[in-house]
């Protein structure tokens, strides 16, 4: 394999990894905040992709410009899912873990069913966009513009998230609630409000990812499941609850996936990622940056 081809693989893997990180971070954030695994995370992504598609269809506006609206929409959806479902699931007196799993898993099935019904199982795609189909040629390495855009957005989002977590009062409240959700009332913080905003934020992050993916990926009711599986691996690798673990792990997953595709037939490209996951489970079950 030539050096150029290797650089090509690494660059593509890196960009896709940044996008995986963006998909996964909301999942990790919500888990870190309240120990709830959102099994509807992939469906949030799917909703964001359909929302981008739908808005593009009716308005003709380019998906790049639609991203803020889709992000806002998902924020509202995430907050409502907490307030309408998860909040009640957390009140279970027994088997609380199971109740939470079934609540979010049931929601995933509901969202999938609704999209099959309303949008049909047909594959959709957004055509004639600013970025779609264009590539950038850097010294013989070809990079698709949608992935470059996704990678840049991911880096910007993680930067913004870092500032939000470390520099703002909301970030402090979020950290404090992670530390001791029962104690925040002692300083006058309503943990339900923090949880609702946390779910909104987690969903908004996957919303941005959906708005990016919709540019270059097919949109269909099962699309969430494909990426959700990678997101769970990413979060487990980075450490459940670790926001910046998700960034590092996403990049690792992207690179491993790209390199596996070189060695094995492309239909087996996922094998490397899951082998890596298995290794993590055996060697370091808490993940790279986990606190478990």
């Amino acid at each position, binding site marked *: 394999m030539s050096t150029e081809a290797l650089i090509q693989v690494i660059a593509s893997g890196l960009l896709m990894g940044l996008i995986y990180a963006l998909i996964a971070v909301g999942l990790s954030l919500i888990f870190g905040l309240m120990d709830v695994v959102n099994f509807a995370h992939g469906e949030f992504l799917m909703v964001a992709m359909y929302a981008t598609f739908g808005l593009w269809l009716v308005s003709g506006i380019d998906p790049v410009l639609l991203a803020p609206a889709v992000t806002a929409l998902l924020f509202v959806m995430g907050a409502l899912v907490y307030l309408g479902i998860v909040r009640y699931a957390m009140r279970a007196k027994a088997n609380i873990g199971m109740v939470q799993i079934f609540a979010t898993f049931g929601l995933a099935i509901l969202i999938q069913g609704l999209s099959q019904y309303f949008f049909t199982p047909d594959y959709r795609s957004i055509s004639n966009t600013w970025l779609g189909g264009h590539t950038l040629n850097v010294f013989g390495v070809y990079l698709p513009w949608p992935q470059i855009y996704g990678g840049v957005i991911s880096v910007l989002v993680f930067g913004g998230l870092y500032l939000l977590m470390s520099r703002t009062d909301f970030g402090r409240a979020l*950290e404090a609630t992670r*530390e001791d959700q029962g104690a925040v009332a*002692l*300083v*006058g913080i309503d943990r339900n409000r923090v949880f609702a905003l946390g779910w909104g934020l987690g969903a908004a992050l996957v919303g941005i990812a959906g708005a990016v993916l919709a540019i270059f990926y097919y949109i269909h009711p099962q699309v969430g499941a494909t990426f959700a599986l990678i997101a769970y691996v990413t979060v487990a690798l980075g450490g459940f609850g670790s926001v910046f673990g998700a960034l590092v792990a996403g990049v690792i997953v992207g690179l491993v996936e790209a390199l596996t595709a070189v060695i094995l037939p492309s239909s087996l490209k996922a094998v490397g990622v899951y082998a890596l996951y298995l290794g993590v489970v055996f060697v370091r079950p808490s993940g790279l940056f986990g606190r478990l």
Partner: protein
Amino acid sequence: MLLDVEKLTTSYRGLIAISDISLAVAEGEIVAVAGANGAGKSTLLKSISGMERPRDGAVTFAGDRIETLPAHLITARGLAYVPENRRLFPRLSVYDNLRLGSYMHRKLPDRDAPLERCFALFPRLKERLSQRAETLSGGEQQMLAISRALMTRPKLLMLDEPSQGIMPKLVDEIFQAVLSIRATGVTILIVEQRLAESLEIADRGYVLQTGRVVLSGSAADLRDNPDIRRAYLGI
């Protein structure tokens, strides 16, 4: 009365922890609640602060009934509670813990005004600002917990066993701080096993036994009460 507790009853899983407790705290007072382990002292404070839901009875704070309010709204009304296990945010810095205390007042231009007072009370906190709360000693953690509560700008400060798990040298410092806090206009309700020390700084006191008030009166009367001298003061 700033705080009026009437016939408060709280139970855990059907077991009554406190029963029919009535007590009152006037503005500017230091009131001590004493009693052995398991007498219901902590349950009493939890029930007032909203951390536990009382089964029966009424709590009136600054003229309003609060016994059904969620805990964060009780804090917002000016009733700060420092629990027995302090409940700091262990991985956050001392400074962040203090800033969270003033979270409710984040829109105020003088948000951190109480900070100087906290440093005056506990100078060692100022040296430890960037340290994680979990790295502090027991006494320092207590100082931080009290300071965090002061950052919420309370009218009434409730302290649950502030002397517990603390070097004897620091216990006195904490009790002196309680007096200084009162001097700045904050009313104090303190729960203690160390009856002698708490009666020294208190104006009035209540003694709990198996969830009920068995004695109450001025601090001086309680100190002179022969039963108390025998049972608690070891004289």
